[in-house]
């Protein structure tokens, strides 16, 4: 089943020099293993192929149900050198969330992952 990352995760991004970092956080704790299994370094590198100039690094934070990605060569030199609108990498987060993951049907069903036609989880039931 195709699952949009936007529908199972939220994210924030920032910069360090010419590197953008994207933290991807599961919308529900039980969905974190999906990120861990399918949001691989290779998958993210393929997603940003041609958008960034350098390699990708990936870190796991199971305690926060989050993954952290470093996208090197993402910011046209970064900081004040960069000519980009997004010189500080503020919206690489949402570029990441455009990704569509192919999750085996059974796994997607048992975790009640939203399909690409559903509304976002947090639009339905804000808990806080």
């Amino acid at each position: 089943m195709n699952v949009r990352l936007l529908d199972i995760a939220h994210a924030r991004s920032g910069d360090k020099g010419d590197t953008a970092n994207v933290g991807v956080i599961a919308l529900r704790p039980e969905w974190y293993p999906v990120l861990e299994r399918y949001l691989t370094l290779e998958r993210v590198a393929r997603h940003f192929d041609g958008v960034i100039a350098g390699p990708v690094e990936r870190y796991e934070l199971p305690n926060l149900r989050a993954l952290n990605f470093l996208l090197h060569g993402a910011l046209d030199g970064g900081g004040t050198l960069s000519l980009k609108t997004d010189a500080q990498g503020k919206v690489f987060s949402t570029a990441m969330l455009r990704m569509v993951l192919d999750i085996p049907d059974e796994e997607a069903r048992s975790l009640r992952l939203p399909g690409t036609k559903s509304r976002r989880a947090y639009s339905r039931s804000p808990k806080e």
Partner: protein
Amino acid sequence: MTTPATATGTRKQLVRVASGQGFWGDWLEAPRRQVEGGDVDYLMLDYLAEVTMSILQKQKERDPNMGYARDFVGAVESVLPAIARRGVRVIANAGGVNPPACAAAIRAVAQKHGVSGDVRIGVVTGDDLLPRLDDLIAGGHPLANMETGDALSTVRDRVLSANAYIGSTPIVEALGKGANVVITGRSTDTALTMAPLRHEFQWAADDWDKLAAGIIAGHIIECGAQCSGGNCLYDWQGIPDLANVGYPIVEGHPDGSFVIYKHPGTGGRISVPSVTEQLVYEMGDPRSYITPDVIADFTSIHLEQAGENRVRVFGITGRPPTDSLKVSIAYRAGFKAVGTLVYSWPDALPKAELADRVLRERLDRLGLKFEHILTEFVGVSATHGRLAGEAHDPPEVQLRVGVRGPDRAAVERFTRELIPLVLNGPPSVTGFAGGRPKVEEIVAYWPALIDKRVVQTRVEVLA
């Protein structure tokens, strides 16, 4: 080395550190709202971003009494009654490249309001390495760029400022000496929050877990409202009353656990998702968040919702820091200019694309050389590139072209070539009211490391 936190020597069991400024330019209302919205013990104001120091250095070159974050004077003025009458203490890295001048300005504003006897200013210096730069290089400190490995000598003649990131120790010392307004130069953002916790709870300088907890508390509130509902993607439409957003406050406990909350009646939202978003902001390797005081491990953080707009943070671990300090160096790196024009339906994108080709051909014919020319189509692909997919006949597209290079004249000429397209390029163009783009000198950032032992901080509490 710390003195007892209170006259009787008993330690507090709870200390509240409020964030009132996430960067130079943040909401002017925030500091006053933080001290008037409820009881807090400390007000923490973070003013310095990576390139701020170089801007301040340029100001100091023009006027030796400048070179600090001027907003801070107004911020202190807005909270003077709380400092003078209610015992709220203020900690800020507003000193920039000139903490003594900043202190003088604060003293003047205290005098103006007749409370100079109640304002004891602590000044932390020693982070400024600019006057020592040649000696340091000659003494075997290459200050190599952490990203490229190049030695600083390759850009030495273009260096504008050089400051070591300093930690919590001098701030703790200033608090111990009774300062109630502590002004630093380039201290780390996180130390501004950790220092008062370390001071009040008398944490030892090698109590790594607690120091790490203080650093992570600092990381969560150093960007102001960015952890309390601002710039929060999670349920953004459901976040209430952003117009009245409450800035975050750390309620610290002696064991290193803490709660992030905001004043009652304010807008925004503090939740596990909002705090998590801020935790991952600008994160590198989560196991090694390196500061001058301690290396904090972000994989040890535990969060739990502990009531409405209260998130409890606990379980944090840390380990000893490295022998180096990071140095923030700024240097002149050429010139740039960015200009925009707006093309409208029909065929907004093809018109903008043609305008870009025409412009580039003219720049080429003039023989102008740039290090880089970047074209973006705002409304189509500027922020997400090819990931944005096909544009579906947008009502308008903004053409945004930027150039950079070492030759100021070439960049200047670019700014003269863009605007004529309004009359001599593709049709249906508008949005040029701002006129010719401005040429900017680029002041770039050069991160380096230096042996901790060569940086000595000094603390002075003004009588």
